[in-house]
């Protein structure tokens, strides 16, 4: 199990990265490599050039600018997990990260790499979709912004242009006084590809009114999706109602099944995990 031959470059600027991408149509970006290396070793992936972006200036930064958290694509998952900015402003991401691989994977694995990899069971893509992250991509001389929920098209399939490079991920900071969140997932063994995962964030204003509810589901579908939960404004929110709303919202969604987990199982579990995630979120804002 040895990779096929390829060339290797480690540019220091985004321009240089884009230059390599433009010049070589069969190049791939190496952003940590925790998913890419197995694919290379099994020869499922056969780039002629690997562009290691670990040394690109600014790619490891986490910054809060105004109401936006900007995250560089090379921020390691283990670093993100310890980031006080992320702990304060993106608690959902902090709850999701421990489910990503095992500790040694998170030391090397990056946020950007995980997003572009677009594994259907990826936790970070699910959080990005749920929180409405925006991906900033440079393609040649063009800067493109793609909303997370428009980015993922299928398993490992994204709207990334073939010569594009993700250089920044921005997450909106909640404008409300309180946020509550919950993240739950189930796999055969902890850290396996999730059969189903659910991410919930609830925002509450200073008067205690719930302003937004976001539910994202992953693992059970071809790519992470935001589930529109409607019909809660009129009534008081409770778990029973939410569960009904979730079940209703999932009615027409095509779940994926395989020998590890049937589609019907994934659907039932998604409902159950979504309820748990809601329960956590509502508890955090003191609603229940």
């Amino acid at each position, binding site marked *: 199990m040895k990779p096929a031959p390829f060339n290797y470059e480690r540019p220091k600027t985004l321009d240089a990265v884009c230059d390599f991408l433009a010049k070589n149509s069969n190049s791939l970006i190496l952003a940590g490599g925790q998913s890419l290396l197995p694919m290379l070793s099994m*020869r499922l*992936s*056969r780039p002629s050039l690997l562009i290691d972006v670990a040394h690109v200036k600014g790619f490891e930064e986490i910054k809060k600018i105004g109401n936006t958290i900007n995250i560089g694509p090379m921020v390691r998952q283990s670093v993100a997990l310890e980031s006080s900015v992320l702990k304060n402003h993106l608690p959902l991401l902090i709850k999701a990260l421990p489910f990503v691989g095992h500790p040694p994977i998170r030391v090397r694995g990056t946020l950007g790499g995980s997003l572009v990899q677009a594994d259907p069971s990826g936790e970070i893509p699910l959080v990005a979709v749920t929180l409405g992250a925006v991906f900033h991509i440079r393609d040649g001389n063009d800067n493109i912004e793609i909303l997370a929920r428009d980015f993922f098209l299928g*398993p*490992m399939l994204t709207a990334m242009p073939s010569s594009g490079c993700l250089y920044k991920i921005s997450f909106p900071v909640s404008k409300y006084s309180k946020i509550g969140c919950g993240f739950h997932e189930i796999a055969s063994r902890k850290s396996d590809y999730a059969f189903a995962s659910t991410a919930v964030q609830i925002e509450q204003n200073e008067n205690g009114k719930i302003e937004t509810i976001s539910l994202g589901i992953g693992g059970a579908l071809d790519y992470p999706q935001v589930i529109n939960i409607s019909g809660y404004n009129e009534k008081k929110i409770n778990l029973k109602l939410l569960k009904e709303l979730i079940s209703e919202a999932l009615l027409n969604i095509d779940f994926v099944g*395989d020998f590890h987990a049937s589609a019907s199982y994934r659907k039932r579990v998604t409902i159950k995990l979504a309820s748990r995630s809601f329960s956590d979120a509502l508890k955090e804002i003191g609603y229940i």
Partner: protein
Amino acid sequence: MKVELSGSELIEVKPEDLWKAIIDPEVLKKCIPGCKDVIAVSHEEYSMKLNLKVGAVGGSFEGKIKLSNLEPPNKCTLDVSGSGSLGTGSGIAKINISKNNELNSIIEYESLGEVGGLVAGVGQRILYGVAKHLIKKFFSEIKNHFLNDK
């Protein structure tokens, strides 16, 4: 691994034109995702080269397309088989083109594919989703083809 897919697409072109397109090597080459080459070996058999890429996964395939049960411009059966660095693939697709109205056709397909080798053995989790996506892409390219024609 078995991959069963069926569906239908509305294409804004007459059945006769659609029929011509889907048996035209040049159109197939343009519309099959990753296709590098389609050569007609005979009226009913094409050889094909693919360079498929799904995210970071990619590999080359060589294969054949055989047409049978031809009932122009409505029906045919496509028998596709190939192998390459990622494994083997084969499948049968039944195609039915019908007239929707004067300008539109509906193409219905029922396909049963088999994927074997490495990609089935390590990627079974995502194969179905990828296959769905590729078929979707094929039809959107067919639609693009007619749009550009206009």
